[in-house]
C-alpha cells in the first residue's frame, strides 16, 4: 500500500520540485526544479532519500500535510516553526509523523522557500523525466490545493544524523557575482557602471521565473528588441523599463531582451531565499 499525504493547508504557493527537466530547452520547455537546490539536496539526504527525489517547495507561508501512515519528514530551507498536531518539533531534522497527525511547516522566519522532504519522496507521475511543477508553461503537477492527495514512495532508512547540518542562513543582503555578457554591449558605460555599483532591492513581483529588482534603470545604447535568442539559468535580462531581472528555474527558454550578464549558478540558491525588500548588488566575477 502506498502512503498518501493529504494537503490540509496548501500555503500561498507550494509546488512539487526535483532536479528539473533538462535537455528539452530547444522545444521551449523550461528546466524548472527546486530554486534552492542545496536546501532540497540536504533535506533529501536527512530524510534518507536519493538525490533528485521530489520534495515540496513552499513560498513564505509554509504548508501542512496529514499522512495516512507514519512517515518521516524533514523541513529545511527557509527556517520556520514546525509542529505535529500543534506540538513543536525540530526544523532541519527528521521528524516522525504518526498516521493521521498533521505536520505544519509555518511561515518562514527568515528567507522565503522551505523544503519538505518525505522519506520515500513524492511519487507523482513524471513529465519529461521530472516531477517538477513548471509555473511558466504549466508542465508537471499543479501547485498544491487544499484536500489534494500526494502519493509517497517506499521509505528509505533514515540515516544516523550528524550533530549539526550545514544550513546556510538566508541573506540579509543578496550579493550576486556576475560575468558580463553576452549583450553587455547593448548598454552605455553609464548603464554598465550603474549595474555593477548601484543598490537594487528584490521586487515583490519576483517569482520562480525571475527575481525582479527595483532600483535605477540601466541606460541602453539603443532601443529595439533583439531577435529571440536562447536564455540560460541566471541570465540577467533587462526589459524596456531598465530594471534587471535574474532568470530562475522556470525562465523562458528564448527571449528578446538583452542579457547584460549571467549570475554564477552557485549564487542562485541565495537568490531563491531573498525576500522582497532585501538589498541586491551585482559584483563582477570571473
Amino acid at each position, binding site marked *: 500500500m502506498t502512503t498518501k499525504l493529504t494537503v490540509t493547508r496548501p500555503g500561498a504557493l507550494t509546488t512539487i520540485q526535483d532536479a528539473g527537466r533538462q535537455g528539452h*530547452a530547444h522545444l*521551449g520547455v523550461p528546466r524548472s526544479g527546486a530554486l534552492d537546490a542545496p536546501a532540497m539536496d540536504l533535506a533529501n539526504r536527512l530524510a534518507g532519500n536519493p538525490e533528485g527525489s521530489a520534495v515540496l517547495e513552499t513560498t513564505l507561508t509554509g504548508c501542512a500535510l496529514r499522512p495516512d501512515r507514519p512517515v518521516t519528514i524533514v523541513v529545511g530551507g527557509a527556517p520556520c516553526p514546525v509542529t505535529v498536531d500543534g506540538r513543536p518539533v525540530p526544523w532541519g531534522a527528521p521528524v516522525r509523523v504518526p498516521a493521521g497527525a498533521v505536520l505544519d511547516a509555518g511561515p518562514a522566519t527568515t528567507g522565503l522557500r522551505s523544503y519538505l522532504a518525505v522519506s520515500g519522496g513524492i511519487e507523482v507521475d513524471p513529465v519529461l523525466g521530472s516531477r517538477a511543477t513548471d509555473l511558466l508553461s504549466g508542465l508537471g503537477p499543479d501547485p498544491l490545493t487544499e484536500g489534494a492527495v500526494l502519493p509517497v514512495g517506499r521509505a528509505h532508512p533514515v540515516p544516523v544524523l550528524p550533530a549539526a547540518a550545514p544550513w546556510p542562513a538566508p541573506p540579509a543582503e543578496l550579493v550576486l557575482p556576475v560575468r558580463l555578457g553576452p549583450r553587455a554591449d547593448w548598454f552605455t558605460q553609464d548603464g554598465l557602471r550603474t549595474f555593477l555599483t548601484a543598490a537594487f532591492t528584490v521586487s515583490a513581483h519576483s517569482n520562480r521565473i525571475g527575481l525582479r529588482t527595483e532600483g535605477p534603470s540601466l541606460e541602453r545604447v539603443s532601443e529595439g528588441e533583439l*531577435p529571440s535568442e*536562447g536564455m540560460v539559468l541566471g541570465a540577467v535580462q533587462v526589459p524596456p523599463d531598465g530594471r534587471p531581472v535574474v532568470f530562475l528555474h522556470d525562465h523562458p527558454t528564448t527571449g528578446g531582451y538583452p542579457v547584460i550578464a549571467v549570475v554564477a549558478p552557485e549564487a542562485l540558491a541565495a537568490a531563491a531565499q531573498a525576500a522582497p525588500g532585501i538589498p541586491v548588488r551585482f559584483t563582477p566575477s570571473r
Partner: protein
Amino acid sequence: MSGGLVVRSVGRRALLVELPDAERTGALHAELLRRRAAGTLPPVAEIVPGARTVLLDGVPEPASLARRLADWDVPLAPPADGDVVTVPVVYDGPDLADVAALWGVAEDEVGALHSSYTYRVAFCGFAPGFGYLTGLPEELHVPRRATPRTRVPAGSVALAGPYSAVYPRATPGGWQIIGTMPDPSVLWDPARERAALLSPGVRVRYQLLSRGSAPDPAPQSPEGLGLPGARGTS
C-alpha cells in the same frame, strides 16, 4: 566557418554563437545535431537555436569549443532529406480579412498562398512545442495585432513578422490568426518519444482544407518521426 560567425561567452558554461542570417543559423544548428549524433561534438547539455543564434548551454569547456567552432566548415544549405510534417489547415481565422488586405489579395486566396510555401521550424519558445516557422517571403510578412488577444485557441495558425506558427494549446497571443488546425493534440504530447511535432529543423507544409471538409486522419509524417497513436493531451 566563413560568414561572420561570432561566439559570445554566456556565464561560465555556455556559448552564444551569432550568425548573420536565419539560413546560416539553421545550417549551423543542423551541423551541431549532425556532429552530436556522430559522437564528434564535445559534451553540450542543451542546443537551443534562436532567430540568428545558437545557444550551447552546459558546456564543460567552453573556451576549447569556441576555438574549434571557428574552424568548422558548415554547408550552407541544410540537408533536404530531413523530416517534413504536413499540417492540415482550415483557413477560417478571425484575422483573415486583415491579412488579405495587407497581402493585397482576396480573403479566399490567403490559404492558397500561405500553403504554397515550404516552411522550416527555426526555433521554439513561448510555450512547449510552439515553433517559429520561417519560409514566408518578405513581402508577406505582417505585423502583430495592435492589441493581443487574451486567449488564442489551440490549433490556431497565425502569422507575425517573418514567422508562421500553430498554437499547441490555448494561450494569450498577439499574432494574426488566419486558420485552424483541426486536431492540434498532435502538436505537443510530453508522453510521446518526440514530444513536439514541430521541433527545430523540421520542415513543414500546410495543407489547405476546405471549410467543413473532413481533415486527414493526422498530419502525414515520415517513418521515424515517432508518433505512436498520436495520443492527445486533452
